[in-house]
Each structure stands twice: as C-alpha cells, then as structure tokens.
C-alpha cells in the first residue's frame, strides 16, 4: 500500500517521530508495569498510533481534545511532556496529576488535552462542552473527541452527535474502530459494520478511513477541521485500526482474538508503512532513521530517569485538591 500526502518531508518525519515515541513509551510502560514499577491498569495504544498523530497534526495549539482509557497516544500526539507522563505512571508527585490519576487519567489542560477517562463514552459529552466553549469564544477553535468502537454504542455518542449537529458545534468525533471492546468483537454488538454510517442519522458527514495510514487520517481530519472552523459543524471520522496487545497489560489477561488476525494487522504496521513511504520518497535513510530513533529513546530514558528520581507523594497529600480553593 502506498501512502500519499502533500505534507512536507519535515512534517512527515515529525509524524514518524511522534508515532515512534508513542510506541516506545508504551513498550516501556508495559515492561515497567510487569516489573511492578507502574500500578493499577495500563491500556496500550500500540498499533493505533497513526490515528492520534494523523488527527493531532491537523490541529493547532489552541484546539482541544479528549481521550479515553487508552490515552497515552493522544497525550503524546497533542504534545504532552513525557517526563510528567512517566512520573504519573510511576505514581510520583511530579506527575501530571500529582500521582492521583495514573495511566487512565492523564490530563494537560494547558495544551488542550482534557484528559484520559476511565468511563467508556464518558469523555464524549465533556469534549462537546469544549466544542461549545470554542464556539462561544469565537476564535475558530475546534474540539476533538477520541473514542472507541465500543463507546460508539453508548448513549452519549448519539446524544452528542445530535446536539453538535443541531448547534453546528466545531467538533470532530474520531472513532478508533479497533474491532473489539475489551473481549467482545464489534461484530457481536454493532448492527452495522461502519460506525461512520450513523452520521447520516444526524445529518453530518461520516467518513471511513484506513486508521493505519497516517496521511489518510490527517487528510480526513484536516477537512473536518476546515469545516468546523468555518462554522460548518461536526464531522464523524471512523478510523479502522487494530490494537496489537491485549485489552490491558494485566497479567493473565485473556486475549480471545484469533492470533492470525493479530499477525495480519501487525503486517499493516502504521509505523513501518510511514517509514517505507519516507524511504521510497528518498526522504529517510538508515542514519536518518537512527537519528530519529535515538532522539526518541533519549527522551524516553530521560523521562524514566525523571520519574525514578521524583518523590512519591506524602500520605497527607491524599486530602489535597478534593475541593478547589
């Protein structure tokens, strides 16, 4: 499969760097989770990196996004600080949420990342509120809701698409259809195979894209952003993709999926696709790739070192921030 785009080579290499950052960050998070340095639950985005990066590359710094329980990729693509992310996973004071949130609840409102969320479909209405805020601010901002195929069956998806369409909110609803909700195949719970088809019921565009093709995602998102900024209202973009790892990193967590299906999707690795494309264009060679990889790894090592050197919260800080001052 050949990818096509009119993005500059620098921008394309930057997309590769971000996608690699997400992957290496999660490989490390998974290993550290199994080593007992990260607690609770970790959901990996590996295999779906092109969605977050393709969409966020189409956004500006003042645009806002919301994430899901599978949130690391969205954070990184929106420009979150790896140090504070890793420190949060490590449960340290210096983490984004001062150790109160962990993997499922990283947020950075300063960069327009309104939070990962542990409740399926819980973010869709909140970020629609960010869309309403953008409309009322009148500065051309847009808001993006990332959510899964599973979430697309929940009430807030339908309720918000209708409101956003009726109010012409500057919204982009990005369904990451990885074909499963925890252990249940989407085919068992969806009446129609394409979530995007539901857009018709709300009178808005519904677009299906190859979620492993970062340029296709970017192009669809750019179109939706233009439409939203110019007052045209919301767009639903469905990105067909796949998660490589089990639903969570928990030990002994079953993965009922067909191994052949997993392997087939791994052959459609979004990162390998982008890398090959850059090489074919003559925009990437071995030293170039090594430089990108090296940069990613040193940033990651620095983040781990930062997390490890950071103190745990003090027990008495458990009662901080229950109420705002």
């Amino acid at each position, binding site marked *: 499969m050949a990818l096509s785009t009119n993005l500059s080579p620098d921008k394309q290499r930057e997309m590769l760097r971000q996608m690699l950052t997400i992957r290496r960050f999660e490989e490390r998070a998974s290993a550290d989770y199994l080593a007992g340095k990260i*607690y*609770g*639950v970790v959901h990996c985005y590996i295999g779906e990196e092109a969605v977050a990066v393709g969409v966020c590359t189409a956004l500006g710094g003042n645009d806002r996004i919301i994430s899901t329980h599978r949130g690391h990729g969205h954070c990184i693509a929106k420009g979150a600080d790896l140090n504070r992310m890793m420190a949060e996973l490590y*449960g*340290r004071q210096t983490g984004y*949420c001062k*150790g*109160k*949130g*962990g993997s*499922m*609840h990283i947020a950075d409102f300063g960069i327009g990342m309104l939070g990962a*969320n*542990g*409740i*399926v*479909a819980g973010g869709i209405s909140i970020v629609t509120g960010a869309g309403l805020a953008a409309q009322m601010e009148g500065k051309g901002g847009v808001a993006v809701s990332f959510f899964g195929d*599973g*979430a697309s*069956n*929940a*009430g807030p998806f339908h309720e918000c698409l209708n409101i956003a369409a009726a109010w012409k909110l500057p919204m982009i609803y990005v369904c990451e259809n990885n074909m499963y*909700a*925890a*252990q*249940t195949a989407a085919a*068992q*719970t*969806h009446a129609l195979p394409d979530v995007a088809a539901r857009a018709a019921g709300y009178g808005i565009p519904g677009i299906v894209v190859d979620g492993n093709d970062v340029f296709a995602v970017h192009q669809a998102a750019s179109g939706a952003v233009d439409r939203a900024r110019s007052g045209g209202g919301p767009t639903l973009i469905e990105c067909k993709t796949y998660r490589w790892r089990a639903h969570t990193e928990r030990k002994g967590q079953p993965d009922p999926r067909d191994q052949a299906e997993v392997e087939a999707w791994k052959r459609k690795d979004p990162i390998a696709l982008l890398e090959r494309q850059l090489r074919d264009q003559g925009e990437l060679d071995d030293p170039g790739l090594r430089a990108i990889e090296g940069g990613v790894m040193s940033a990651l090592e620095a983040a781990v070192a930062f997390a490890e050197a950071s103190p*745990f*919260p*003090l*027990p*008495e*800080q*458990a*009662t901080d921030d*229950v109420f705002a001052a």
Partner: protein
Amino acid sequence: MRELTYNEAALEAIAEEMRRDPKIFYMSTDALPPLLKEFGEQRVKATPITEAAFTGIGIGAAGCGFRPIVDWRQVTFCFVAMDQIVNQAAKIHYMFGGQVTFPMLFRASVGGGGLVAAQHSQSPYSMFMNVAGLKMFLPSTPYDMKGLIKTAIRDNNPVISFESSRLMGRRGPVPDEDYTIPLGQADVKREGSDVTVVALAWLVHEALAAAEELAKEGISVEIVDPRTLVPLDKDTIRSSVRKTGRLVIADEAGPTAGFSAEVAAVVTEDAATFARLKAPVKRVCALQVPIPYSPVLENAVFPDRNRIIAGIREVLDAKQPAAA
C-alpha cells in the same frame, strides 16, 4: 469441606440457579466464559457498552416474567444507568401498586486496593441504601456469597450483589449441597465480650486479624458481619453492642452519610442499647476523598487492621459519655 474462591462461589450459585430455572438469563459487557459455555448465547448475552439500556432491558424483561441477572461488572459502570436503577427499578413495583414483580439480580464489584484510581475504586453502597425499594448485600466469604446470591435470585425484588474486588480470589469452604442464606441476617464472625466491631467484606478479615492480635493482650473482640445492607439486621448489631458496651464500625467507604453512619444511628437511637454504651461509637472508614492512584496515597486513604486496632483501643480507653 471443599474450597472455592469468592468469585467461583458466585458463579456456582448463578449456574445452579440457571439450571433450575429457565427464566433466568444473564447480561454483561463481555459474556462470562464459563456461563456462556454452559448456557449459550441466548441466556448469556454480551451487551454493547450500554449499561443504561441493558439495565432497563432487564427491568422490562423482569416485568414480563423473566428473572434477569444484570452484571455491571464494576459499580463504577452502573452510574450511567442511575435513572434506570433509581427512578425505575427501585420504584416500579410500588408505584404501580404492586401489580407485577421485578425479580432481578444486579452484580457490582466494589472497593479499592487495585491502585486503579478514583473512578475504579469506589464503595458507593450507601448511595443505593438511601433509595427505597432496593435490597442489597456485600458478603465477606465464599460461603456467604453463594448463599446470598441464591436467595437474591429467588427473591421477587431487585437485589444488588455488591462484591468486594479485594476478595475475588480469596478461598473458603463451601459445602456441596444446596443452601441459601436469608437476606437481612447478620453473622457473628467471632464472639467476644469487650468490644463489638461491625465490619463489611474485606474489613471483616482485617477485623479478624485485629481481634487475633488483641486477644494476646486479653482483649476480647466480637465481630459482626451484617452481610446484608438492606434489610439490615439491626437486632444482631444491637444485641452485640448491649453485650459489649462498645462499638467500632469498619468500612472501606468514606464515613459521610455512609453505612457506618447508619449503623451508628441504629445503635444510638435504641434506648436499651444506648444505655449500655460505655464509650462513644468509633468509625474506622476511608478518608472522604476520591481514591488516589499512587500506592502511598491509596494506603493513606483506606482503613486496615492497624487502624481497626487503634479504633478499638480508643473506645476501650474512652470514658463513659455520661461521666465525661
């Protein structure tokens, strides 16, 4: 006697009841593999992630003669179904003058200890206790789990099975033969004479450990496990406190308007029990905060055996209120 885990005991109770009564069916996001294997997709349904919808669907099916089991998995996920639970399931039998029954079992795991932060570590049963028309229990052992689930499935009302996530893998004896445990019957898990500890779920085990520790000093602790939250076995709690004269309540939830507040009221509003109190009632609960992620913080929030011991010492040292 053979042993089962807490979770296996629940599944065994459900499977036995499903074999007995074809009107029972099961709904949850992700079908439970052992039930699916035995009963098939017609009776063990994998729902979309639509707790509001499948809770309501359960209510409708119940009103039409079925006995649905609605498994929300974590209690967290049922909050999106609050309208169906509070406005519909709890009231529908009463509001329609008792015309038909709505026999349903809801399942919801509760509690912390998993370092999964605020949304996934909740113990909100007192919110539900506050709603008239719902029965509910929270067992501490596999034995109690199996007996209570069976009773709840046979009950003609909506009953919530709160299940402690900390106890899921904990083993305990469960007899082979069929048995049930009535709702509204507390169990004295340890007899003693100096102080009563009313504890729930995981904290029953922490209280037992605390009692063992204090026994070395000659302090005799009685542990009452209410098991059922609604209806609450007030008599067993009151008679234990009348015997010991001192009460500590241990709950993994926060104290505010909580289960622990209810037990304190049950004891102090009864004149005969109040008259026997030798010390103020002590609550050993979680801090009233959303549950934090980091282990240092989570530990700071939850009560444990040491805090129960400290609570017991406090009531043993306290002066009689009237003499203060």
